[in-house]
C-alpha cells in the first residue's frame, strides 16, 4: 500500500506547471509502475498506466483521469534585481503578494512575490489590489547575480512547504489536483490482486489548467469505453457561497450535469450507497471545469463521470484537504472498476 500522506506531500513539493509536468510525472510513474502492467507517456506529456483485465479481447476499458499539472507563473521580463511574471492557470492576484516561489532558471532560485509601493505603480493601479503585471519577484540576488540565471519564459512554482493539521488534514499548494492523483494511486493499490474483467487506464493528464489538452488527447488515443475524471471541488469555507460548496471531510462529490452520463452517474451513486461511502451530489448545470468536459467529447464521445474531492481555498498556496476524502474517492473508484461486467455498457441506455 502506498503511504498516501508522504506520497502526496512529495507530489505537491515537485514542480509540474501546465505543459511542464515532467518532474511530477516521474514521481507518479515510480509509484504506479509496480501497480500496473504497462506505462507510457503521451505526445503531450500525460502518463498512461494500464492494468489489464482478464476478459477476452477486445476488452472494454475504464479510463481514470486525474490532472497532474499545477498553476503557477512564467517570467515575462527582467528589470535589474526583479522579475516580472504572468500566470499559468487561473489566479486571483490578491493572493500573491508575500508568496514564496521557486524560479526555475538555469538553477532553481528562491523567489518572493512582492508589491511595489503605490508611488512606483502606474497611476491607474495606485489604489485597490495590485494587478499581476505590476507585481515583481525578488530573488534576493543582485542584478549581476540574477542576470545569467533567469530568462524570459522561465517558470515559477509556488514554494510554500506542505504541512499537516490535526484530523488527517493536509495544507499546501497544488493539492488541486495532485490530491486526485493520490486518490487514483489509492485505487490502484486497492485493485492489487483483484481480477478485473475490464482494462483500467490510470491517466495523469497534462495541461488541464490551460486547455484540457492532456485529457482530450489521451481519451482519443486510448479510446476507453468509459471515463471518470477525478478532480477537486469547492469545500465550504469563509466567503464561499454555501450552495456551491461541500463539507470537507464528509466524502467526495459525484458530479451531475451535462458533462456526466446519467447512467454512469447512477451506477456510481448506487455503488457508493451500497458500500456506505459518504458522498454529496454536486450539480453542474454547464461546464464542469474539469477533464470530464474534454473526455466526454473525445472521438465519437465517451460516457463520462466526475468524482471530486472537496478542497478549501482552491488556487491559493494554502489549499486544504481531508486525507480521508482522498482514500474514500480512491476506494469508490476501485470498487467501481471491479464492479464492471461485460454487460455494463450494453445496459447503459438512454431509455429509463
Amino acid at each position: 500500500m502506498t503511504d498516501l500522506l508522504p506520497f502526496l506531500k512529495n507530489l505537491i513539493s515537485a514542480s509540474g506547471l501546465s505543459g511542464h509536468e515532467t518532474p511530477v510525472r516521474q514521481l507518479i510513474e515510480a509509484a504506479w509502475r509496480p501497480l500496473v502492467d504497462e506505462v507510457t507517456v503521451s505526445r503531450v506529456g500525460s502518463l498512461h498506466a494500464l492494468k489489464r483485465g482478464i476478459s477476452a479481447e477486445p476488452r472494454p476499458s475504464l479510463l481514470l483521469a486525474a490532472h497532474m499539472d499545477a498553476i503557477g507563473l512564467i517570467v515575462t521580463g527582467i528589470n535589474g534585481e526583479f522579475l516580472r511574471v504572468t500566470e499559468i492557470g487561473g489566479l486571483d492576484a490578491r493572493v500573491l503578494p508575500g508568496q514564496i516561489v521557486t524560479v526555475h532558471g538555469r538553477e532553481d532560485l528562491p523567489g518572493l512575490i512582492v508589491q511595489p509601493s503605490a508611488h512606483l505603480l502606474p497611476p491607474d493601479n495606485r489604489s485597490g489590489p495590485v494587478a499581476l503585471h505590476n507585481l515583481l519577484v525578488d530573488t534576493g540576488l543582485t542584478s549581476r547575480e540574477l542576470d545569467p540565471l533567469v530568462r524570459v519564459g522561465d517558470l515559477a512554482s509556488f514554494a510554500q512547504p506542505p504541512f499537516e493539521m490535526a484530523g488527517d488534514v493536509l495544507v499546501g499548494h497544488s493539492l488541486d489536483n495532485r490530491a486526485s492523483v493520490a486518490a487514483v494511486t489509492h485505487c490502484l493499490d486497492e485493485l492489487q490482486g483483484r481480477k478485473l474483467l475490464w482494462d483500467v487506464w490510470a491517466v495523469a493528464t497534462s495541461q488541464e489548467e490551460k486547455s484540457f489538452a492532456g485529457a482530450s488527447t489521451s481519451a482519443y488515443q486510448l479510446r476507453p469505453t468509459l471515463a471518470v475524471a477525478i478532480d477537486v471541488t469547492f469545500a465550504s469555507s469563509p466567503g464561499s457561497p454555501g450552495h456551491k460548496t461541500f463539507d470537507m471531510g464528509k466524502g467526495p462529490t459525484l458530479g451531475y450535469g451535462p458533462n456526466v452520463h446519467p447512467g454512469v452517474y447512477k451506477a456510481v451513486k448506487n455503488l457508493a450507497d451500497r458500500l456506505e461511502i459518504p458522498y454529496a451530489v454536486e450539480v453542474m448545470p454547464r461546464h464542469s471545469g474539469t477533464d470530464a468536459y474534454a473526455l466526454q467529447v473525445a472521438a465519437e464521445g465517451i460516457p463520462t463521470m466526475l468524482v471530486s474531492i472537496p478542497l478549501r481555498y482552491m488556487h491559493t498556496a494554502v489549499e486544504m484537504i481531508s486525507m480521508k476524502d482522498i482514500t474514500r474517492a480512491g476506494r469508490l473508484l476501485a470498487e467501481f472498476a471491479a464492479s464492471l461486467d461485460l454487460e455494463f455498457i450494453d445496459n447503459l441506455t438512454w431509455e429509463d
Partner: protein
Amino acid sequence: MTTIHDSPKTRPPRITAEQLRLLENLTNACAVSGDENEVRKIVLQEIKPFADEVYIDHLGNVLVKRLGKGEDRLRVMLAAHMDEVGFMLTFNEDKGDGIFRFDIVGGVSTSHLAGQPLWIGREHVPGVIGAKPVHLTTGDEQGTPLSIESLRIDVGPGNSGKVKIGDRAAFATRFSRVGPSLRAKALDDRLGVATLIELVKHAPQNIDLLAAFTVQEEVGLRGAKVAAYSLDPQIAIALDSTPANDLPAWDGSENERYNTRLGSGPAIYLADSATLSDPRLVRHLVETAEAQGIPYQFRQPGGGGTDAGAMHKQRQGIPSISVSVPGRYLHTPVSIARLSDWKNTLALLHSALIRLTPAILQVERDAP
C-alpha cells in the same frame, strides 16, 4: 575627541555562522506585541553570562546593564524591540470548523494576508488565512481589496479546540539565506535584537552599556518609554529595521522615494514622524563611519518611527538617534535584508560606542 582604544576584552563583534544561527532562531520565534515571551527567552539565555545586571520590568522589557571601567563613562542606552506585527484571534465563528475572526496587531497591510500560513498561540498550532477560490470570484470582487472583515483564520476542524480567542498568530515563515540576502519574517526588529545581543557581548569599556530589549514597539513604543525611564541614560540609540522601498518605478523613471536602499549600509536617521535625531549623534555616527571606512546611508527624512520616539522625551529629555538595517517588505510575511548591511550596522555601532566620550554632550545640540 579622544579615542579610547579597544582592549582585548572588547574585540570587535563579527557576524559568523553562530550569529546567523542566532538570527535564524530569533526570526523563527514568534513574539507578537504583548506576548514577547519566546524572544525574551532567547535574549536572556544569550546575554546573562555577559551582564552585570539583568531584570525583566513590569511590561516585559529585558533591561541589561554592562558597566565599563574608569572615569567619565557615559550611560548609553541601546534599544531593540523584541515584538513583531501579527494577529489576535477575536471570535470563534464556526466552533466545529476551526474558523476564527481576527484582528491585526501593529501595522500589517491586509494585501499580504490571503493565502498565508500562520502559527497560532504558544504551541504554534498551524493555521491559514484562506481566500475565496478565484473560480467563484467576480471581476468586481477581484478589483476590491480583501478586508479584515472578509478574511478568517482557519486551523482546520481537528485543531478547533487547541486555539482560543486572545491567542496571537504570527506569519509561519522560516528563515533562509538567499545569495547575499537574508529572508525571514520579523527581520524588523530581530536584526536589531541580534545586533544588540552582540553589542552586549562585546561592550566597549568606555561606557556603561544599558541595553533594553523592548516590548510593544509596534503598538506605540510602549516598552521603550518605561525602559528609558528606568535606565535613565545620557544618550539613547534605537536599533531597528527600516523599509527599503528601492524597487523600480513602473515607467523606468528614477525612484526618488526609496527611504533606504539595500546594500548601501546602515541607515542613519535624521527625522521621522516621531523623532528629530540629535545632531551631535548624527555627526558622531557619520564621522565614525567615514573614519572607519564603513558604508552608511541617511534614511530619507519622512514618516515612520522607532523606540527613539519614546526615549528622547523621557525624563528631562535624552539625546537620541536611530540606526536601522534596511529591509524590504517589512510587516509582510517575508522580508529581505542584506547580510552586508547587517555586518556594517554592527561595525558602525560598535565603533561609534568606542569613540563616545562625555565631550559629545558638552557642545550645543544644534551647534553648527
